[in-house]
């Protein structure tokens, strides 16, 4: 069998051939018993592939997907929480260190000195007078 004709035959199942190729194939089919048999074999193979029994997953597939989705979501939430926890602890430690540093610089234990506020009255601020030492 002419391999070129056989390739044309295979291609003819999936795409429209050029007019000249189609004519060559038609002539080949008219004259070659082998090519006609090959056409029938390919057609049968393709039909059987199309008719293959639909495979399926094990029973309760949808339930397993939804269950797994729940597990994925809760593990994501746990990851978020663990990231949040470590960031929160780090921030708290930083605030405490800053507070302690401010208090040590100011030599007075008060909320204002922990936050680093200057000891100024509102009048002093408004009058733009230099702060009292």
């Amino acid at each position: 069998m002419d391999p070129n004709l056989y390739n044309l035959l295979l291609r003819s199942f999936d795409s429209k051939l050029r007019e000249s190729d189609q004519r060559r194939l038609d002539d080949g089919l008219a004259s070659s018993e082998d090519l006609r048999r090959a056409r029938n074999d390919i057609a049968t193979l393709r039909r059987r592939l199309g008719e293959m029994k639909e495979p399926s997953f094990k029973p309760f597939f949808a339930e397993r997907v939804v269950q797994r989705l729940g597990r994925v979501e809760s593990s994501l939430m746990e990851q978020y929480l663990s990231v949040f926890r470590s960031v929160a602890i780090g921030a708290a430690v930083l605030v405490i260190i800053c507070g302690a540093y401010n208090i040590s610089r100011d030599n007075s234990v008060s909320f204002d000195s922990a936050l680093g506020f200057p000891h100024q009255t509102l009048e002093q601020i408004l009058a733009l007078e230099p702060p009292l030492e």
Partner: protein
Amino acid sequence: MENDLKKKPDEELLQRSRKGDAGAFKELVRRYEAKVAATVIGMVGRNDEADDIGQETFIRFYNALNSFRGDSSIGTYITRIAMNLSLNALRRRERRRFLFKSIDTENELQEPAAENGAGRFEQSEILRSAMQRLSPKYRAVVTLRLAQGYSTEETARMLRIPVGTVLSRLQRAQKKLQTLLRAYKEDF
């Protein structure tokens, strides 16, 4: 409740799934399970890995619900995810095969499993087994174009390859399948 969902169109199930309705998403899984199974089992064979890939396909789809704009149908979109995951799994398998060559080669040459005690193979099983002997790139076009009936253009889009490549792969795959199936000439 579940019966109500069965009558709802895909679009409504999508909307409800986006809002976190697990029942609606479960119904979508039921609707597209067969399509995904055909793709995944066609590609990796009938085994536990196939079930895992199937589940992963729907989890990826769930995570992409908000970005899914409906440019393609849900079926096409999910099939594309399933195909990509299957190809990834086959690549991993190939790497394993490279490491444990002797074991896997033995598996590859196994005959298809008998469907019943009398030893008569069911046609579908023979075909599926023959498909497993094709290399992944040929198996992918056979699964999408010939087994699932997508057009050559859709197959090309899903696999992100030119239509001409789909056609030439189909040609070679059919030749190879015919050679493999020659042993079962009476059935084919």
